[in-house]
């Protein structure tokens, strides 16, 4: 777990947006740009997927990312790999320390299994993802992305420890108000976020909160 702070100044960002809890966000981050997700109130799950903006069939691969770095948890220095083995993003700063990519996104159907059958009518990350994709004409030739493009995502700021015996738990968060994670795009990348609306899980204190999203243009040294 490594804490790396950023030197970038919010006033110099070319994009600065507060994403409310329960909302989705689909945005292109250009190669060389730096993208920050800021946990405004602490322990908010930010379910995130990445796609090659020129060919969204190439997308984030959680299993390749974990295997190639030899570690389950994402932090500064992690290279977010695509299904084709290319680097989509490199995490360049992280004041939280580690992020999950095993837990996936909540969905109506998985909520019915995990909590109770009638919880399937509650708002969920997959609903947010599908809403964003349903309203987007993405990519060259307006490729329509759909459910087939939803795969195992990153959960920024979530703490999902695995024991050596192979148990998995959703533990209390290690994030806090003001913690952030920052990544540099290594190609033109679509970032798809669901700012998680989960109300059944203590990991966010049953209180989903907004996050701040910032982008800086390429820094010329």
């Amino acid at each position, binding site marked *: 777990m490594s804490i790396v702070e950023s030197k970038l100044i919010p006033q110099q960002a070319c994009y600065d947006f507060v994403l409310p809890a329960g909302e989705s966000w689909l945005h292109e981050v250009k190669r060389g740009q730096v993208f920050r997700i800021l946990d405004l109130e602490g322990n908010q799950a930010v379910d995130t997927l990445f796609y090659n903006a020129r060919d969204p069939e190439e997308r984030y691969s959680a*299993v390749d990312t974990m295997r190639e770095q030899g570690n389950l948890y994402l932090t500064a220095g992690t290279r977010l790999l695509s299904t084709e083995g290319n680097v989509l993003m490199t995490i360049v700063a992280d004041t939280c320390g580690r992020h999950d990519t*095993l837990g996936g996104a909540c*969905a109506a*159907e998985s909520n019915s299994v995990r909590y109770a059958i009638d919880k399937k009518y509650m708002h969920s990350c997959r609903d947010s993802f599908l809403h964003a994709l349903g309203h987007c004409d993405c990519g060259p030739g307006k490729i329509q992305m759909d459910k087939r493009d*939803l795969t*195992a995502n990153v959960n920024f700021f979530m703490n999902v420890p695995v*024991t050596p*015996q192979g148990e998995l738990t*959703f533990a209390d968060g290690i994030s806090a108000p003001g913690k952030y994670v920052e990544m540099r795009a290594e190609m033109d990348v679509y970032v798809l976020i669901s700012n998680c609306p989960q109300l059944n899980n203590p990991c966010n204190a049953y209180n989903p909160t907004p996050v701040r999203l910032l982008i800086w243009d390429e820094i010329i040294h």
Partner: protein
Amino acid sequence: MTESLSKQNMLWEETIPGGAHWSFQMKRGTALRITDVQGGANLSTLLYNQEEKLERYNMPDTLKAQHTAHLTKGFVLYSDMGRVLASIIGDSCGWHDTISGMTNATLVEKKYGKTDYQHARNAMHRDARDSFIIELGKWGLGKRDIVPNLNFFSKVSADETGALHYQQNHSKAGDFVELRFEMNVLVVASACQHPLDPNPAYLPKPVHLQAWRCGIPDEKDYCRNFRPENVRGFYNTDLLFR
């Protein structure tokens, strides 16, 4: 009660050679025993709902619903639609991996060198990702349908820091895992080596498959009651067949 494998209820059997790939249907109420013939096998596998192939095995939902990062007897394999594709009803090796993905062409060439069809004919080196692309193509599916997969017979654990450890010699000759199918399922499999197998030699091992008619599990079923979540997962699944 469901039935164990016997000479009377066996439907078919077949051996997938090391490195080969195949895909086939398994109907609700049938089961599959996969046997590691020589020891050290790995079977990268994905499962799809045969009737609606947009519904497929979901690694995160399987793990978080059952609070586990590994798979063995009792655990079930969830689809992204909150249903149980298959249950693990038997297992002699105690741990199957689902967090490490599969081999790809770059990894195989880097590890084992290039051995192509022109020189080696059917002893050519194969990789699991290309094998999946081929098998999925037979069913109208493709790259977008490849999601985090199962690796039967392989063990990858994580220490307190999250560092991954591949356990060598985990599966022995004769070790087996048994899957009971709770839906009509398309099984896609590649018998390529595990991507973290440190063996510098390209030596993928064969697996033997035996399918049998086992019947539908009742309310007292072990896997159904293995976790409270699974009771609800089976409820969701049974709704499809009412």
